[in-house]
C-alpha cells in the first residue's frame, strides 16, 4: 500500500523503523554475506598478499609512487563530506527535508572515513609502523613531523572522525531509547546501554538540542578543513599541476559533490530495500538534485580555472602536465570525468529528472565514477609528468589495486548493512517533528496496532 508522507502517523514511524531493525529477512543475510565475502576476498586477501610481498603488488613505480590507494583515500574522504557536513548545514538552516535522510548520510560519513583510514593502511609501505604518525609520548622523544601536511591530515581526519562519531551518536540517543522501549532480549540490553538512560524529559531534549546545534556548528569548519588539508598533501608539493592555490576549494567542492551524489545513491537503496518509500520522497531527491546541480556548476568552474591557469602560466612543466592530462595516455579518463561530472549533471535542470528515482540513481553513480576518476587523475597524470622528462613514466593499476578498490566498496556496504540493523537509519524523532501532531484519543493508536 502506497502512503503519502503526510499520511504517516507518529506510531507508524516507530513501527516502521523498529521493524527495519528487528525484522530481518533472508535477503538481508544474503546481501550481508555477499558483502562480507567480497570484502574478505577482494580487500583483505589481496591486502595480506601485498603485506607479504610489498607494495610492489600494486602497479606503482618510479616516478608514479602514488596510485589508486591514495586516489581511493581522497575519494572516500570526499564521500564522507556530504554526510555530516550536509546534515549540520541543514540542521542549522532548519531544513525540514533533512530529517529523513541525515542519519544515513552521517553514517556514510563515518564509514567512508573508516574505509579511507583503511586505504591509508593499504597505501603505506609499512602499515605495522603507522602509529609513528601519531603524536604519542615515547622514551625516544620521537615525534611526528608537525610540518608535514600528512601529519595535518592525520590530525584533521581523526578530529573529523571523532566529531562526526559523536554527532551521529548524540543525534541517535532518543531513537535508541525509542527502540530500547520496543525491543526485548539482547537488543534491549544493547539499546539500554546505547541510550544512556534517556527518558525524554524536557531538560534532556533541551540539552540535546543545544549540544546538537553546538556540534553542528563546530563540524562545519572541521569538515571544510579536512578536505582542504587533504588537498594540501598535494598542493604543498611542487609537482606541476598539483602545486595550486585552488586545490583546497577544489577538493572541498569535489568532496561535497561526490558526497551528495553518494547520498542520493544511499537514499535510493534505503528507500527501495528498507521500505522507506514514504519517508524518503521525491522532495528529497528534488532538493538533493538542486544541490548537485549547483555543486556540479561550481566544480566545472574550478576545472576550467585549473586548466586555464596551467595554460596561462606558459611554463614548460605546467603545460606538459596539462597537455598530458587532456590529450595524453589517460585522456580518455579525463573526458569521461568531464562527461560524467560536468555535462551529464546538466540534466538536473529538469525537475522531472530530479524527481525520477532511477535516473537520479544512475546519475549519482556516474558522478561518483567521474569523481573517482578525478582523484585518480590528480595522482596519475601529475606524477607521470614532472620536471625531469627523462624520469617520466606511466602508471597502470594492478589487479591487486583494482580488487582492493572493489573490496573497499564492499567493506563500505558491509559497514552500512551492519549499521542499518543497529542504528535507526531514519531518525525517528526528527521525522516525527515533520508530521502533524497526533490526534487525541486512542483510535489512531489502535488503528496502527
Amino acid at each position: 500500500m502506497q502512503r503519502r508522507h503526510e499520511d504517516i502517523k507518529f506510531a507508524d514511524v516507530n513501527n516502521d523503523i523498529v521493524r527495519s531493525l528487528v525484522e530481518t529477512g533472508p535477503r538481508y543475510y544474503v546481501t550481508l554475506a555477499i558483502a562480507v565475502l567480497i570484502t574478505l576476498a577482494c580487500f583483505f586477501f589481496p591486502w595480506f598478499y601485498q603485506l607479504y610481498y610489498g607494495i610492489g603488488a600494486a602497479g606503482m613505480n618510479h616516478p608514479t609512487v602514488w596510485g589508486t590507494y591514495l586516489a581511493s583515500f581522497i575519494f572516500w574522504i570526499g564521500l564522507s563530506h556530504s554526510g555530516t557536513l550536509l546534515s549540520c548545514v541543514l540542521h542549522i538552516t532548519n531544513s525540514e527535508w533533512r530529517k529523513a535522510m541525515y542519519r544515513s548520510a552521517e553514517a556514510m560519513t563515518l564509514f567512508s572515513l573508516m574505509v579511507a583510514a583503511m586505504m591509508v593502511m593499504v597505501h603505506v609501505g609499512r602499515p605495522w609502523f603507522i602509529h609513528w604518525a601519531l603524536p604519542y609520548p615515547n622514551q625516544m622523544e620521537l615525534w611526528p613531523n608537525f610540518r608535514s601536511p600528512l601529519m595535518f591530515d592525520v590530525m584533521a581526519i581523526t578530529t573529523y572522525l571523532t566529531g562526526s562519531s559523536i554527532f551521529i551518536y548524540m543525534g541517535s540517543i532518543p531513537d535508541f531509547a525509542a527502540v530500547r522501549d520496543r525491543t526485548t532480549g539482547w537488543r534491549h540490553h544493547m539499546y539500554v546501554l546505547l541510550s544512556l538512560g534517556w527518558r525524554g524529559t524536557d531538560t534532556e531534549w533541551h540539552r540535546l538540542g543545544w549540544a546538537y546545534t553546538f556540534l553542528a556548528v563546530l563540524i562545519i569548519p572541521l569538515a571544510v578543513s579536512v578536505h582542504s588539508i587533504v588537498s594540501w598533501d598535494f598542493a604543498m608539493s611542487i609537482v606541476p599541476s598539483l602545486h595550486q592555490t585552488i586545490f583546497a576549494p577544489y577538493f572541498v567542492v569535489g568532496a561535497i559533490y561526490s558526497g551528495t551524489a553518494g547520498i542520493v545513491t544511499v537514499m535510493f537503496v534505503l528507500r527501495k530495500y528498507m521500505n522507506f518509500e514514504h519517508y524518503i520522497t521525491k522532495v528529497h531527491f528534488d532538493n538533493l538534485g538542486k544541490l548537485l546541480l549547483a555543486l556540479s556548476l561550481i566544480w566545472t568552474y574550478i576545472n576550467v580555472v585549473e586548466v586555464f591557469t596551467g595554460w596561462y602560466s606558459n611554463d614548460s612543466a605546467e603545460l606538459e602536465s596539462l597537455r598530458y592530462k587532456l590529450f595524453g595516455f589517460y585522456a580518455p579518463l579525463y573526458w569521461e570525468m568531464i562527461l560524467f561530472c560536468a555535462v551529464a549533471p546538466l540534466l538536473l535542470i529538469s525537475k522531472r529528472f530530479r524527481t525520477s528515482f532511477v535516473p537520479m540513481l544512475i546519475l549519482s553513480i556516474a558522478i561518483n565514477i567521474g569523481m573517482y576518476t578525478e582523484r585518480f587523475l590528480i595522482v596519475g597524470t601529475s606524477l607521470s609528468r614532472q620536471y625531469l622528462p627523462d624520469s617520466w613514466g606511466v602508471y597502470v593499476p594492478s589487479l591487486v589495486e583494482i580488487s582492493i578498490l572493489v573490496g573497499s566498496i564492499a567493506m563500505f556496504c558491509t559497514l552500512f548493512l551492519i549499521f542499518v540493523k543497529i542504528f535507526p537509519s531514519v531518525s525517528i524523532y526528527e521525522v516525527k517533528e515533520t508530521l502533524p501532531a497526533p490526534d487525541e484519543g486512542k483510535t489512531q493508536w489502535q488503528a496502527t496496532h
Partner: protein
Amino acid sequence: MSLIDDFLARWHEYRRPGYYEEFDYHWTMTVDLDRCTGCEACVTACQAENNTPIVGEDAIARGRHMQWMRIERYWEGEYPDVKLRAIPMFCQHCDAAPCETVCPVSATYHNQDGLNAQIYNRCIGTRSCAVYCPYEVRYFNYNNHHWDEPLDQQLNPDVSVREKGVMEKCTFCIQRIRQAKDAAKDDGRRRVQDGEVQPACVQTCPTEALVFGDRKDPDSAVSQMLGNERAYTVLEELNTDPSVVYLKKVDADAA
C-alpha cells in the same frame, strides 16, 4: 608563563628551516658536465658501495629500478646536427628540501652536515617524499630484494640492506663521511680535511667530473669549483637550494 615562553622558544627552534642554522660541515658535490661522458662508472660504483639491489628485468620494465645514481640523457637537434646531453642525477641534498617537510615521521631530515639523511628504520613508506622531490631521486622498495648466493657476500657491511616498504636514495655515502669523521677524531684532529672523504661515485669517475668536499672550507677543491662561472643548479627556479652544483657543459662552437 615560563611554560609558554618555553613553548615559544621551542617553537622558534622548530620553525627554523632544516633545523640547523649552521652546519658543522657543508658537504657539497660538483659535477662538471664538460667532463662527464655519461660512462656510468659512477652508477655501478654507487650500486656496489650502497647495496642497491639487482631488481631484474621485469621490475625495471615496471619502472622500479633502484640505482641511486642515474644518467639522464637528453637529445638536442635532429640528424646530422644532433647532440646528446648527459647529466648524472642523484639526490641533490637540498638545503630547502621539499622531501623533508612532507615526511610525516621525519624519516628524512636534514642533518648537521647539510645532508639530506634518510632513516630507513623510521620510514613508514608513504612515498610522499618521492612525490615532493622534484629531482625524482628517491627510490622505493616495492618488495624485498634478494641476492642469489653467494652474491650476497659482496654486500657492504657498512650499509644496511633495505626492506620492503622503505624509501631510499643517495646518502652522499654517509658511511664514508662517518668513517672520515671518526678517523679525524681518533687522530685528535678537529675537522675532516679536504679529500679525506670521497663518495664511491666521485672516487671512480674516470674523467674526474665529480668533486666532493666541504663548502665551509674556502680552500677546498669543491669551494674552488663553486667559484667557477659555469656553476649552476638544476631546477634552480624551485628554490630547493641543492648541495649538488653542476658546471655547465661547454659548447665549443657557441658564440
